[in-house]
């Protein structure tokens, strides 16, 4: 038998497996699975989904700025396999960087005019590190406590009326009932 594996087929199988596994996860865990996938697609998006939007924004801005700086050094061309195979694979850590690399094709990166040639390799490293750091950010999503996720889901599902209702008064212990004395 002759098996042919293409990148698209592997991605489809992995996606189907991911959806299947997500369906059998607990409710609190399922949103984590979606957040994990979203975090790969766009750095920081997973944290935003889990309600930690400040942290998500921080990750997005810091990784985006690093990627933009690396791309600026490399003449806005992503790392190709010929430039450096290891840095090329490092880009796969984020869907956004992978998409940009795919859209740009197999153009070879070149050092920006006016910059010292010794900056070229660090520029490629910047692009690669963004992908690798995004993997760490994705892993940190798994550390978000289930209770926090449950609270987030409950907040979304809770009706507005219940949310605005005043809190219940604390229970007051009942006063002891006096027992009437029996006549002798």
């Amino acid at each position, binding site marked *: 038998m002759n098996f042919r594996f293409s990148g698209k087929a592997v991605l489809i199988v992995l996606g189907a497996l991911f959806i299947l596994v997500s369906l059998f996860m607990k409710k609190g865990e399922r949103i984590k699975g979606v957040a994990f996938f979203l975090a790969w697609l766009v750095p920081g998006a997973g944290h935003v989904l889990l309600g930690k939007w400040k*942290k998500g924004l*921080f*990750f997005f801005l*810091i*990784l985006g700025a*690093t990627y933009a*700086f690396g791309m600026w050094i490399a003449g806005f061309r992503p790392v190709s396999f010929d430039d450096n195979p290891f840095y090329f694979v490092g880009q796969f850590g984020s869907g956004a960087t992978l998409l940009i690399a795919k859209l740009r094709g197999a153009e070879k990166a070149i050092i920006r005019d006016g910059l*010292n040639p*010794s*900056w070229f*390799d*660090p520029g490629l*490293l*910047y692009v690669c*590190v963004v992908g690798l*750091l995004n993997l*760490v*950010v994705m*892993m*940190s999503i798994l*550390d978000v406590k289930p209770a926090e996720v449950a609270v987030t889901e409950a907040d979304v599902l809770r009706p507005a009326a219940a949310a605005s209702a005043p809190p219940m008064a604390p229970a007051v212990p009942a006063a002891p009932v006096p027992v009437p004395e029996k006549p002798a």
Partner: protein
Amino acid sequence: MSGVSYLFLFFPIVLVILLVLEACRSDDPKSIVKRAAANLGVLTAVLVLGGAFVYVINRWF
């Protein structure tokens, strides 16, 4: 100096790495910045001392 100007790129990338790693394990912005800066100082000291050691070895031995 321009030949080794790429060494200045060490600081931003290490700072970014340390900030992201600290942000993954902590929620307090103050402690994130504090710990990242402290670790950057340690790593820079290691780099400078290592560079000085290699320079001395190459220069005098």
